[in-house]
């Protein structure tokens, strides 16, 4: 085993993508053992040289002056002379270098050495005279590669067969048919054509009613041309079209909601859905493709003040990566190149591209366009909380950050000898790139100047004052109520003895057991030392173990239970409580095996920490949540009534009628035992009542736990004190809000003057003076905020002092002391003069998204918003969208074609370079590209062209075209359509749409994962990130957010499980059946004009056939054969005969069957 890896091991960040991998690694071609007698240059030698040597010694590069792409060139040799001596392998440099044991001088320098077999083949070939064909052509000049040539609108061949074809697409397809002898498939049936158009253009099939309308006007066979055209136009104008195609582009442009680790945002951005909405709207508006690209790459430079257009730069915001700038830049360079240009620029990160004329520098030249950019959130009108909503967008930070080439692509080895400037590859350079910095309007780089920002802040301050004013009014009312209650209770106390709270039942009591007898039907005694005497049940064992009495009958799920008890002693904890939902094993304690859960409410008279606590045990671990605890004095030798009311997971606890805890228990409820427990307590149980909780009893929500109504005069008196303190706090809070409003107003006014001053060229003494005065006022107003805040802090501590248990007092007293000092010092400061250097806080209109590139475990120093943007990205976008760019339009139309037709014209959709696969129909590709450009980059124009073609309308079946299969089995020449499997979103959306449940609301924040199961929104609105994706959608090859230039189309059993068992389907089948039934009932003959139904006796069966026909058309897009109808009839009859199955359920089962038909998820 070698101790170290070969030195050629490629550096890390560079081991990224398979295409690159292809370029540097060994393929075991030409490796079969070579028969020495029969080495053939073309078979055994040239492929090996091509794979391993051409990249450096071929048309692309001629290292050491050597080319090896023909036998003649090998013989000619390079700087070191001939590479071979025919007949003498031992004297041949070629053999010497490939067989060199020293890795430093061995060829090829990267990847594994040639195998012994490969070297042997070269050796034998030379030994046999190094024979190569005389007419061997050297490799073509890389710059002559087809994709780098200008797009020239091709001549459309005249149609020789006028019976086939509708537009130039067909003519270009037909010319290959004719030359190859292929017979194009006939057009698909009307239903299938309609289904294709709907799913292709809007992402869901027609509803049953729509089917009846559309097909009612047309018999079987192709649609009338006018109907077809009308349908195409209607669908292209349907707003669902933008949603459908947005999802395609979101795949290509790597849409992702934010993801990270836990709550830490590491990738993409908050609110990135604004970009998604911009894509949808742009497609619906038919915004030109070139304009979309420009706005995505440089919207911040092109429309710096237009929030709507700034959304487009979400394309760049999505590439945000918290930790590593290089990774961020790499992803940007790689995917800008792949998605817009079809270039695998990423291969040039570590060295010159092995196949394309893209030198190492080019990678960093491309990176330099993006070097200055960062991401920020811009405030939207009316929303000051950027976490709630804002526009994530790109902006240029400092333009002077140099871009360095990384030696071998390693970020640890920047070549700082020269900074690399932005530039595009020479091979596709159209003209000298002009990069001009762009002066931004002040409001773009000082977003606080935007009127809506100021308005939003002022409105927020105003509503804070309003809220605080209401709170003061409420506190006044609460105080008045407390005062009255105290007075009433005091008056009552004079006439009345204290009424024990247990005597005031609030709900009907089912069972009250006062232990006159110990009823063994009711009670099981567990642990400890229980002693019963009439009227009392006593626990006499001391020590930290649990004892309990178990309520033998099944307790109610929602209940109202009271326990009156007196604790007389115990070593320490002195806890008495009520446990419910106790599993069989739980009584044995936390360590017990098996399912070990319970919910517990207990009163603990432990010295120094007495309390009422709600606790629970999960997986054998006891949890004592802090927010389910009420600290209060619990005395020994005094009866208490602990009352627990539970409705589902909402629990209310009161002690002696005083509410103490209201809480949502996090542990799921389960049917379990009800125990009355003691732990380390000597205690006597006097009375237990158990009743179901009446539905009309109102329980307190957790937040209202402190709104306990006192029942004793002493409590009421204390409550009055608390209410006064609360009023005081509310008043102080109002003072803060008012001070903030005032301060904000002053600061906005001062800022306005400061901006005016900054924008004024000439000195204006009066303006300077006014600005100074405003500054002083603003600072004074800010000081008042500090004073008010300090006083509020004090009021808050004073209130907490009143509410706290004794053990907290010392801590709170210290807080009060500090707060008092702070308030005094703030007041002192407020009196002092404003210094000349003192500044007030500006307001914020946007926030830079912090990065952590420095690995300091804190945010990096903030990137300021600069008045100038580098203009680099605008220059790049202009070059990409230049009509003369040979790549952009070709790449775009290839993507569009693929999504209409199921298969691309250039199979390597993101690699149009020399290693990619050339187009099957170069003229068609160029014709479509010309149409795109000449139509003003209208994508709808292209959609219309493609779906109107005869090529689009063909059947996908191979039936009757056996002759074609013999010529072109793979259908590379489009003699039939390619069937496609619906994308995950189309599957789900279709099911909901057919059921009439789809919510067609457009746009807005992504639906969180937890809400998705119940959400009727279109699937593209679902939160979708690397970490969070919808389970149902993942079953059908969901888009990978890191790279998805084409979707997978798998067929796996998990899909069958999702469609047979998923609630999405099972909830939809009855509504779908009903809608089909309603539509079929109106018109018994649909689609197929077959009269066969008439021969079947009985109306019901005739109706059933109509139902079956419409169900087929609706769900699988074809009219069933007699055989299929018969099979369905038979199944329907069987279902109807099954116990408890109604006729409508039987129909629902048929719908279920058809949703699981291959053709439901297939676009034939």
């Amino acid at each position, binding site marked *: 085993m070698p101790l170290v890896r070969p030195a050629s091991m490629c550096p*890390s960040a560079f081991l*990224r993508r398979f295409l690159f991998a292809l370029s540097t690694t060994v393929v075991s071609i030409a490796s079969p053992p070579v028969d020495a007698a029969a080495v053939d240059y073309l078979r055994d030698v040239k492929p090996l040289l091509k794979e391993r040597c051409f990249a450096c010694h071929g048309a692309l590069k001629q290292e050491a002056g050597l080319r090896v792409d023909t036998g003649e060139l090998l013989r000619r040799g390079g700087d070191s002379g001939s590479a071979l001596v025919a007949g003498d392998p031992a004297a041949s440099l070629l053999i010497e270098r490939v067989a060199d044991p020293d890795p430093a001088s061995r060829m090829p320098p990267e990847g594994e050495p040639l195998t012994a077999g490969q070297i042997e083949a070269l050796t034998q070939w030379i030994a046999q005279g190094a024979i190569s064909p005389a007419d061997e052509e050297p490799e073509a000049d890389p710059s002559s590669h087809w994709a780098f040539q200008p797009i020239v609108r091709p001549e459309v061949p005249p149609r020789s067969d006028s019976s086939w074809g509708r537009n130039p697409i067909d003519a270009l397809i037909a010319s290959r048919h004719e030359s190859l002898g292929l017979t194009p498939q006939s057009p698909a049936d009307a239903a299938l054509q309609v289904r294709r158009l709907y799913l292709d253009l809007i992402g869901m099939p027609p509803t049953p009613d729509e089917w009846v309308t559309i097909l009612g006007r047309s018999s079987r066979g192709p649609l009338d041309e006018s109907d077809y055209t009308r349908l195409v136009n209607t669908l292209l104008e349907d707003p669902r079209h933008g949603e459908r195609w947005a999802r395609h582009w979101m795949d290509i442009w790597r849409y992702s909601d934010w993801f990270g680790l836990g709550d830490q945002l590491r990738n993409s951005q908050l609110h990135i859905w604004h970009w998604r909405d911009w894509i949808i709207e742009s497609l619906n508006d038919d915004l030109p493709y070139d304009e979309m690209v420009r706005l995505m790459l440089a919207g911040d430079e092109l429309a710096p003040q237009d929030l709507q257009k700034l959304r487009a730069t979400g394309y760049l915001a999505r590439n945000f990566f918290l930790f590593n700038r290089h990774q961020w830049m790499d992803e940007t360079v790689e995917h800008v190149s792949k998605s817009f240009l079809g270039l695998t620029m990423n291969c040039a990160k570590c060295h010159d591209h092995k196949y394309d004329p893209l030198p190492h520098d080019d990678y960093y030249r491309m990176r330099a366009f993006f070097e200055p950019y960062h991401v920020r959130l811009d405030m939207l009108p009316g929303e000051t909380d950027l976490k709630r909503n804002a526009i994530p967008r790109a902006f240029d930070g400092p333009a002077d950050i140099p871009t360095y080439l990384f030696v071998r692509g390693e970020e640890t080895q920047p070549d700082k000898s020269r900074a690399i400037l932005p530039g595009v590859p020479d091979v596709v350079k159209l003209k000298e790139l002009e990069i001009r910095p762009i002066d931004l309007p002040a409001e773009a780089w000082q977003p606080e100047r935007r009127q809506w920002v100021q308005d939003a802040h002022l409105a927020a301050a105003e509503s804070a004052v309003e809220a605080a004013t209401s709170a003061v009014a409420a506190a006044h009312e609460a105080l008045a109520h407390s005062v009255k209650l105290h007075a009433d209770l005091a008056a009552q106390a004079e006439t009345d003895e204290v009424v024990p709270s247990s005597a005031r039942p609030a709900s009907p009591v089912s069972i009250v057991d006062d232990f006159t007898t110990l009823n063994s039907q009711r009670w099981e005694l567990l642990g400890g030392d229980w002693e019963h005497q009439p009227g009392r049940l006593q626990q006499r064992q001391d020590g930290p173990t649990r004892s309990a009495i178990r309520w033998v009958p099944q307790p109610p799920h929602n209940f109202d239970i009271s326990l009156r008890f007196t604790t007389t002693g115990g070593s320490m904890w002195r806890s008495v409580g009520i446990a419910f939902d106790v599993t069989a094993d739980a009584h044995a304690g936390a360590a017990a095996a098996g399912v070990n859960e319970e919910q517990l409410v207990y009163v603990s008279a432990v010295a120094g920490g007495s309390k009422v606590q709600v606790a629970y045990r999960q997986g054998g671990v006891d949890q004592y949540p802090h927010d389910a605890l009420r600290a209060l004095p619990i005395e020994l030798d005094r009866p208490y009534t602990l009352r627990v009311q539970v409705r589902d997971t909402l629990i209310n606890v009161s002690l002696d009628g005083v509410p103490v805890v209201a809480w949502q228990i996090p542990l799921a409820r389960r049917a379990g035992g009800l125990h009355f427990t003691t732990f380390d307590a000597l205690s006597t149980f006097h009375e237990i009542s158990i009743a179901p909780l009446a539905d009309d009893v109102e329980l307190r929500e957790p937040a209202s736990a402190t709104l306990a109504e006192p029942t004793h005069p002493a409590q009421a008196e204390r409550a009055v004190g608390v209410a006064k303190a609360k009023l005081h706090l509310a008043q102080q809070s109002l003072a803060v809000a008012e001070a903030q409003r005032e301060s904000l107003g002053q600061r906005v006014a001062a800022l306005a003057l400061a901006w005016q001053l900054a924008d004024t060229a000439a000195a204006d003494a009066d303006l300077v003076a006014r600005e100074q005065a405003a500054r002083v006022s603003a600072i004074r107003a800010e000081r008042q905020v500090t004073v008010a805040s300090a006083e509020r802090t004090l009021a808050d501590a004073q209130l907490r002092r009143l509410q706290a248990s004794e053990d907290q007092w010392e801590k709170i007293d210290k807080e009060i002391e500090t707060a008092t000092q702070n308030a005094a010092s703030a007041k002192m400061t407020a009196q002092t003069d404003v210094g000349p250097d003192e500044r007030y806080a500006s307001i914020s209109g946007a926030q830079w998204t912090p990065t952590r590139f420095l690995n300091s475990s804190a945010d990096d120093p903030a990137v300021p918003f600069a008045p100038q943007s580098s203009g680099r990205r605008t220059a790049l976008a202009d070059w990409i969208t230049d009509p003369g760019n040979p790549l952009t339009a070709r790449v775009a139309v290839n993507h569009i074609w693929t999504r209409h037709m199921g298969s691309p014209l250039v199979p390597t959709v993101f690699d149009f370079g020399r290693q990619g696969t050339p187009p099957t129909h170069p003229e068609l590709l160029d014709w479509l590209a010309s149409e795109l450009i000449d139509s003003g980059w209208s994508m709808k124009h292209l959609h219309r062209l493609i779906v109107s073609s005869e090529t689009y309308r063909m059947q996908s079946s191979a039936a009757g075209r056996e002759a074609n299969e013999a010529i072109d089995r793979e259908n590379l020449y489009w003699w039939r359509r390619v069937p496609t499997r619906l994308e995950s979103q189309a599957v789900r959306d279709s099911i909901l749409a057919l059921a009439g449940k789809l919510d067609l609301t457009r746009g807005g924040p992504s639906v969180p994962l937890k809400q998705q199961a119940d959400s009727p929104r279109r699937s593209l609105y679902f939160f979708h990130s690397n970490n969070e994706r919808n389970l149902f959608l993942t079953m059908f090859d969901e888009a990978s957010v890191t790279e998805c230039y084409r979707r997978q189309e798998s*067929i796996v059993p998990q899909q069958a499980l999702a469609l047979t068992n998923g609630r999405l389907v099972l909830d939809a089948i009855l509504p779908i059946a009903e809608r089909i039934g309603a539509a079929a009932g109106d018109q018994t003959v649909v689609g197929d004009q077959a009269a066969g139904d008439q021969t079947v006796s009985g109306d019901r069966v005739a109706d059933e056939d109509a139902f079956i026909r419409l169900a087929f058309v609706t769900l699988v897009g074809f009219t069933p054969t007699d055989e299929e109808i018969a099979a369905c009839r038979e199944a329907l009859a069987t279902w109807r005969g099954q116990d408890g*199955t109604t006729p409508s359920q039987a129909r629902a089962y048929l719908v279920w069957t058809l949703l699981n038909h291959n053709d439901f998820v297939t676009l034939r």
Partner: protein
Amino acid sequence: MLTYPTPRLSRRSLLGNGLASIALAAMLQRDGFGQEHGWAPPNGKPHFPPKAKSVIWLFMNGGVSHMESFDPKPMLNRYAGKTIAETPFAEVQSPDRLAIERLVVPDANGNQRNTLYPLQVGFQKHGESGIEISDWFPYIARHVDSLAVVRSMWTTDSNHGAQSQFHSGRHRNDGDFPNLGAWVHYGLGSLNDNLPQFISMGNREYWNASDGHYLGPAHDAVPLRVDPANPLDFARPERPFPDAAKSVGTELIARLNSFREAAYPRDPALDARIASYELAFRMQRSIPEALDFSQETAETHALYGLDQPATAAFGSQMLAARRLVERGVRFIQVQHGGGGAGAWDAHGGLKANHTNNAKAVDQPIGALLEDLARRGMLADTLVVFGTEFGRTPGSQGADGRDHHIFGFSVWMAGGGIKGGIAHGATDEIGFHAVEDRHYVTDIHATIMHQLGLDSRKLEIPGRKRLDIDHGHVIHDIIA
């Protein structure tokens, strides 16, 4: 875009190869790759006679301390509290020896941990081989003579993205790549048409569910919960659906699909769809059956620790693994320990952390080895115990250890692996692997080799991995 190569594949071979592989093959062929390189999808047969039939891949999320598990370093006790520079081993920190570490997203502090931290557990020699194993793993230690402990692992990525690296050979930052289990599934297909061939249990922390990645989702692991009530997503109707009605519908689905063969002859997608429904319906029965532990004896329950809270969870997964292998599942990966970066990530409180984690897995793993051996299954079942990296010889904070990529341990057992050997070595403080160094993909290569697979023959033109990803078979540990 589903065009398929002819001649038509039989139903059986469709299942065997995994369905998407066919789609992929077709795509590649259409894209020109297949034709150019004469590549063909695997046919489900090994490339040479295999030693192992199935793999149980145990992965401890977070990074197990190699020095406190399978690679004792008494020098740590001797020099405890000294900085490495103060010991005779200062050379381990020379920059050129640390250079293999890649600059990646830091998720620990990334600093060298210089102050040696003593071993937190004792060691005993075990078995005839006398290999030392820490006292935290007494049950595994009983089987030491079946184990080949590789003490000389190294990797390049010191953050937890290395979890993904250990599964695919690639760090998470490199993008997604097929996991080992996906390659095995792709290469060998099915031993049992009723069950998924690649199963994953336990928590996944740092890599997503796309095990198959470019091989296609058919090669993704099927996540399995050892909960007979809900072992598999969508395994049971989520709304009431009478069995009788369902069986009528199921039969009708098959009939209606097959009727379509008339209009769409020679359509392998249709065949694949029909086959996928058949397997789905079989899985609905076979998986609950495979997870029905009531068929096991009380002694077996106790053996796996199902009767104790500490071991019940992982024990259930181990017992499930054995039952699944018995039924012909090819590759099972079991991840132990979820939360944050993985349960074993003991940056602090290492002693308590490893004590608890070892307690949770040791008896169940020992039971698995025992149970496989006594059923005669260990001979052709390869058990692998791995983790993303080791932990630093130096302390982090008062009582933890940081991530450590320069040397750590992995062990294998069964499936034609030599027992009772400790292969390779780290230096005296467990810092660098120094003898018989192995990169993580050497483990992959060894597993593939035992299954009769040559990774180079499996690779798909245009979708290849780099040389290093193929790894080198560790011949020294093969019986």
